[in-house]
């Protein structure tokens, strides 16, 4: 499991627009680099990132090799109700890493 850092205000007010910052440890191998024998190092990147809020998708990103290693993505959402935010990172092979965070809306 890759290390993940997720940050957002834990107790926002209802209707407040909150900024969510996400950072995941991943090399994001571009598929354009050569190893020291001249062979291409195969591409291996996170190609999709989604965030759902109590089951509904509120943000989605398609990522390409031009995204930096250890991808950082910050986006906003409206704090509508308390519940669960689920963050998913999906790589080229379809492997998914999901992280769940509680949000308490006052």
């Amino acid at each position: 499991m890759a290390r993940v850092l997720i940050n957002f205000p834990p107790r926002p007010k209802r209707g407040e627009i909150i900024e969510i910052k996400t950072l995941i440890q991943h090399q994001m191998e571009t598929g354009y680099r050569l190893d020291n024998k001249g062979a291409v190092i195969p591409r291996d990147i996170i190609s999709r990132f989604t965030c759902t809020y109590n089951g509904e998708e509120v943000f989605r990103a398609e990522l390409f090799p031009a995204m930096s290693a250890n991808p950082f993505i910050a986006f906003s959402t409206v704090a509508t109700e308390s519940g669960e935010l689920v963050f998913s990172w999906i790589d080229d092979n379809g492997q998914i890493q999901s992280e769940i965070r509680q949000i308490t809306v006052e």
Partner: protein
Amino acid sequence: MQLLLTRRRILLAASGIGLASFVPAAGATEEAMAGAIRDLTGEAPLAPGKVKLELPSIVENGNTVPLTVSVESPMTEADHVESIHIFNQKNPQPYIAAFHLGPRAGKASVATRIRLADSQKVIAIARLADGSFWSDSADVIVTLAACTEQ
């Protein structure tokens, strides 16, 4: 002793000793970018405006370039940003990322970090709910780091 190290000399010295070298594609990315943008917008007009693409004008390393893109929009059900697409001019591929928003976003603003292989232009295109396309661009100068593994 005068320091006569120039970028050219360091690059020449580094060639052939690299552990991993970068292989750029055959130079047609500007065309590929135009094609990729056409694929997105189709016949619809593309106008500069509404979008603000923020990138540093010069970076010390092309591996991690911070980017923020925002679009003026009330982000209501009727009037919101559906998606923001980032393209580049000189990397092997024209695509960088596509972000899908919607009224639940509250505001249309995304920050991330990208890789730029060389000094080049980056373009951000926003698609609004009414099907219109708006854009902004930024030029970035990419310098090489000194004293690397190669």
